[in-house]
């Protein structure tokens, strides 16, 4: 009876997850959708506590510690640090699935059926890759580790051998139940997460997180098979499948395939690849920039990760307002993959209270670009690199970009002369109509606002 009620509640929870994901996909319902899925989670967790034969000391302690850490982290994080926090959370979920699989093994040591042994191996393997992979993504996104891909000779062969060894040992464990084989699988899966993500450039981390999110769903699903729990299987599988679709959508926004993202070593080719750059970078002072802006009728901001780093979103909004007061038409062009995560810039500008109507998507922005007097590029790089459109030898050739080079004048706000996160030289900076304004983006923008106010 009790078990039936629990399972009925699991069905309700699963329905709420389905509606939740569906609602998260459209702007009007997204926040409610998140709440709906949270209620589903609450139901699933609460009814599980009524499961027969549980002792509660460890459970209560775990719930308290986990809730405290999770809540504090979510409250404290800056909006700019959002991508790496999601990576961190995702890694924790993966490790949790690994541990659930392992704990089940210690329970009936050596007496697993071949099926249970198989799903234990799957939960451990996928969970382990998700954990270390997400940690590397976290390190790259937070700048604690360089964004350039780490490549070494024979890397693909080496990784393939690790995969084979892992699968072989997994099979050996399933067939014989040998303990050390399981530990070897744990170790190799953790190693594989690292090996798989280090050759991927920092600019591609959003796609990696999305894919690893899909993995963590599958790991949960595998853990569900281990303990024969329906809601784990359903919810995990939903995330696994929808996460994969989201990953593909993201790749399409960059006009690349998933395989190219994972195995392309994108961004390692700084220096080589891409035609010789002609012209030189021309710097401009804030005062001169002010005179140009003062006369401009149409200004478009193109933000990138640099704006997030400089925490310049509020200053940018203020400059936008001043320009409007001065009679200019102001809008913000947002590339689908600008920042470290898709929609990252939308979140930041929303935080700064930029009116929704002023945010334009790439295609709309490109349509009006030739009529724009000044395009202000703030810490964006690859997403405005004309080489993507013009230079077939460039590694990013074919990626859709915001065509700021078609505007009459381009201001590029940049900290220094170095290449972008992906390591590529941006030919935009060498164009006739581009002016570089060096320095901290926030300081520069504030200085421009000051000029208008004087």
């Amino acid at each position: 009876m009790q078990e039936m009620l629990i399972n009925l509640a699991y069905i309700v929870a699963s329905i709420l997850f389905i509606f939740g994901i569906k609602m998260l996909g459209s702007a009007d319902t997204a926040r409610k959708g998140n709440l709906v899925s949270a209620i589903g989670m609450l139901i699933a967790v609460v009814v599980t506590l009524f499961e027969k034969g549980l002792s509660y000391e460890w459970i209560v302690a775990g719930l308290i510690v986990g809730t405290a850490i999770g809540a504090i982290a979510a409250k404290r994080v800056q909006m700019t640090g959002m991508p790496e926090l999601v990576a961190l959370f995702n890694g924790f979920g993966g490790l949790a699935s690994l541990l659930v699989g392992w704990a089940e093994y210690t329970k009936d040591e050596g007496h697993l059926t071949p099926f249970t042994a198989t799903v234990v191996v799957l939960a451990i393997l996928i969970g382990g890759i998700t954990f270390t992979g997400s940690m590397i993504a976290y390190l790259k996104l937070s700048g604690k580790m360089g964004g350039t891909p780490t490549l070494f000779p024979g890397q693909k062969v080496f990784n393939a051998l690790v995969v084979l060894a892992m699968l072989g040992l997994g099979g050996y464990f399933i067939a014989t139940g040998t303990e050390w084989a399981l530990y070897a699988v744990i170790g190799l899966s953790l190693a594989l997460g690292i090996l798989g993500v280090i050759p991927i450039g920092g600019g591609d981390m959003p796609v990696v997180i999305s894919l690893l999110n899909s993995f963590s769903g599958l790991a949960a699903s595998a853990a569900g098979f281990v303990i024969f729990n329906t809601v784990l299987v359903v919810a995990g599988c939903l995330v696994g499948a929808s996460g994969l679709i989201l990953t593909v959508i993201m790749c399409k926004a960059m006009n690349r395939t998933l395989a190219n993202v994972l195995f392309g070593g994108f961004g390692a080719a700084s220096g080589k690849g891409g035609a010789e750059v002609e012209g030189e970078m021309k710097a401009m002072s804030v005062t001169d920039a002010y005179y140009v802006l003062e006369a401009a009728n149409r200004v478009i901001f193109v933000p990138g990760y640099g704006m997030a780093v400089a925490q310049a979103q509020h200053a940018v909004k203020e400059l936008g307002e001043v320009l409007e007061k001065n009679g200019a038409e102001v809008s913000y062009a947002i590339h689908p993959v600008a920042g470290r995560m898709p929609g990252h810039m939308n979140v930041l500008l929303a935080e700064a209270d930029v009116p929704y109507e002023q945010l334009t998507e790439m295609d709309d922005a490109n349509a009006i670009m030739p009529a724009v007097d000044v395009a202000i590029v703030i810490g964006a790089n690859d997403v405005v690199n004309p080489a993507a459109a013009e230079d077939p030898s460039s590694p990013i050739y074919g990626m859709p970009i915001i065509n700021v080079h078609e505007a009459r004048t381009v201001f590029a706000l940049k900290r220094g002369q170095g290449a972008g996160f992906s390591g590529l030289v941006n030919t935009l900076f060498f164009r006739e109509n581009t002016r570089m304004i060096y320095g901290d983006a926030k300081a520069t923008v504030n200085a421009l606002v000051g000029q208008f106010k004087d």
Partner: protein
Amino acid sequence: MELISLLFTFVLAAFLGFELIQKVPSQLHTPLMSGSNAISGITMVGAIIAAGVADGLFGSILGFLALVLATINVVGGYMVTDRMLGMFKKKGH
């Protein structure tokens, strides 16, 4: 038999998941990822069972660690997604 029905459920859920999201505006990619990441914390349910029924200290510790990590994933994931989406709502109206 129970196993078959579980596999059956898995397959249906996979197809449903593939159909669930199709055209998502790019500004919602991050919240959607973060929100579904919170759902993948469902492994918390497995962790509760592992922490509660494990016999032997080692098994209990594994279960406890799993529960802490999964709870961080769930609580943090939902809260951070809500914060993000709250900012979207503010604008315009």
